[in-house]
């Protein structure tokens, strides 16, 4: 029990990562009802973009300068790929039956993975990523916060705040809300829905790039497959929190992260459940939680029940 604060911190940091990636899924779904399965790979490309930026900068530059530049470099890469995907893979399929863009997204995910595996130098093995040097922060006797965890726990709320303000207060943000609510009427009101859709993809991709820099700083390495499992979990988080709702994405992510961390640590301490705990069952319990939540509340934690649009 005395490691509870530590496991909570682990869960929160993991959850914040899921949440940042889930934003991408939820924004795209909210506006075009498309589950962008390639978003995990957008996240991965953001990471490689950040790594390239780091390799280009002269070595010895302090991390304070390097990290914002890496985020920008990663965001450039991921936004470029996301908007290209939207323009060339998804836009032509706007009127097609729902299944077509879904399958395209899955195919695109495989293509992007293999492109990086095949063409990025030395990507066949994990590539090392710069890390924070220095000890973890001692918060309590039984709580040590590693620097990378502190990084994401500070950055994620800041990003959410910025996004929330943007969507609620700015013109483009309100245009996004309008397009999500009813695209045809939004067009009638003079909103360029095509541009709004590109913006949604771009914002999702930028958040994914931030997430991948945080991930790289934490793990010390990135590899071409990292988008697959994280994308899947982040999508689950988005659904758990209510797909289409950006705050839901972060809430879902945190709930999922906490569920994983706590189930690894504590399920096996419940009498009778010794076999069902530990790292092997973390995913099982996380998804059991998802199923239970969806049975009770199918629209997700923060989702709204909306009638299907005609």
């Amino acid at each position, binding site marked *: 029990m005395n*490691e509870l604060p*530590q*496991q909570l911190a*682990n*869960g929160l*940091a*993991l959850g914040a990562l899921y949440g940042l990636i889930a934003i991408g899924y939820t924004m795209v779904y909210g506006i075009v009802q498309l589950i962008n399965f390639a978003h995990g790979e957008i996240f991965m490309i953001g990471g490689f973009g950040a790594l390239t930026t780091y390799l280009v900068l002269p070595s010895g530059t302090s991390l304070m300068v390097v990290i914002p530049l890496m985020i920008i470099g990663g965001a450039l890469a991921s936004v470029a790929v996301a908007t290209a995907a939207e323009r060339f893979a998804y836009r032509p399929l706007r009127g097609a039956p729902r299944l077509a863009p879904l399958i395209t997204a899955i195919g695109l995910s495989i293509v992007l993975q*293999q492109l990086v*595996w095949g063409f990025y130098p030395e990507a*066949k*093995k*994990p*590539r*090392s990523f710069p*890390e924070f040097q220095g000890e*973890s922060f001692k918060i309590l006797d039984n709580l*040590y916060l*590693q620097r990378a965890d502190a990084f994401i726990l500070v950055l994620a709320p800041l990003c959410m705040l910025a996004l929330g303000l943007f969507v609620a207060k700015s013109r483009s943000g309100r245009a996004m809300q309008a397009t999500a609510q009813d695209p045809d009427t939004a067009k009638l009101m003079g909103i360029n829905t095509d541009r709004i859709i590109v913006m949604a993809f771009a914002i999702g991709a930028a958040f994914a790039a931030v997430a991948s820099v945080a*991930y790289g700083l934490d*793990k*010390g*390495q990135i*590899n071409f*497959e*990292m988008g*697959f*499992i*994280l994308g899947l979990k982040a999508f689950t988080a988005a659904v758990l929190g209510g797909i289409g709702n950006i705050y839901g994405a972060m809430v879902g992510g945190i709930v999922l992260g906490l569920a*994983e*961390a706590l189930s*690894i*640590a504590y399920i096996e301490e419940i009498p009778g459940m010794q076999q069902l705990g*530990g*790292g*092997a069952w*973390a*995913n099982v319990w996380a998804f059991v939680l998802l199923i239970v939540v969806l049975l009770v509340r199918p629209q997700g934690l923060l989702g709204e029940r909306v009638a299907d649009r005609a």
Partner: protein
Amino acid sequence: MRHRSLIILTTVLTTGALTLTACGSRDDNSKGNSDSDSKTTVVIGVDAPLTGSLSALGQGIKNSVDLAARTANKNNEVPGIEFKIEALDDQAVPASGQANATKLVGNKEVLGAVGPLNSGVAQSMQGVFEKADLTQVSPANTNPSLSQGDNWGKGDSKRVFKTYFRTCATDVVQGKFAAQYLYNKAKKKQVFVVDDKQTYGAGLAAIFSAEFKRLGGKVVGTDHVTVKETDFSSTADKVKSSGADSVYYGGQYPEGGLLSDQIKKTGAKIPTMGGDGIYDPAFISASGEANDGDFATSVGYPVEALPTAKQFIKDYNAAGYKDPFAAYGGYSYDAGWAIIQAVKAVVADNDGKLPADARAQVTEAMAKVSFDGVTGKVSFDEFGDTTNKQLTVYQVQKGAWKDVESATFED
């Protein structure tokens, strides 16, 4: 109406084109034979993860067998025979391995196969090869049950597949050797054991735990990780709070490197030890200096130390492959060379030509193969296991694997 006839036309054309290409490839095979003039082509199949997270090892395996084939051709090792390889990707998935095995069996020119990398994949390939009497030599499978049957642990070893051989020592040797080193030499008494639930990792961890307990050590906790996951911080915290002074990991380098790194980040400055699955530079590149002190065991003596290996390394670098030969390069070269030697023996027995039942004869000749290979003396015992029970313990020092102890394992 216009659309429908267009669809019909397109369907007919596509079906026709596909049928033609299928015919075409079969014709190409026979054309290839007649083009080779007096030389008969013998194909050595290679099955390994050529893509995916273990592709670094798989590519090394493929390139090393290719080097063996090229060397044999250059030296005219078997007069009248030209060796080629057919490399298939199994992505470390058992079902893909089985499909590849079926494909290799169906190609009449294949007289032997090298691979796979993963013990779990081998389990689904052995039956296919056995039915076709096609020899299979693995450079990397270490699970004992593959050659000694499921009851090997109870002392009841029985060879199930007479077509299955391997050039690397099994986990029985590796796990016990690791436990003895960790307990006696490194003086660690409380170990936390983690594995990745796969055939190789779980098997190795179990053998290690049994031996460690037998020596008097204590296993203070166990946990599992899932392959392809990257966040092991909760498991790492469990390791820290268990008070263990070392960690044993049964599994491969992608997860092992991250696990070791995350354990150290929690503040527990304890070494992680693993088997040949983590003996790869990628294990270290996760965290550079921070991994110093971690151990790994690997089969055989360090490749760089053997005089026979020096020639292999020179030839490999000269051949200009894109990827390094990685941990199993030497074993793969020896596996390929063993097949070449078996073919040589069969051809010599048969007046310089390949007999009709070449595959069965190659399998029989394989059991008698014996030569000095890259990794030492290559020959097989009654189970198809290598007689070369040499092992080395490596430690990460200053960001690179350095061998600290080599020994020949005595049962």
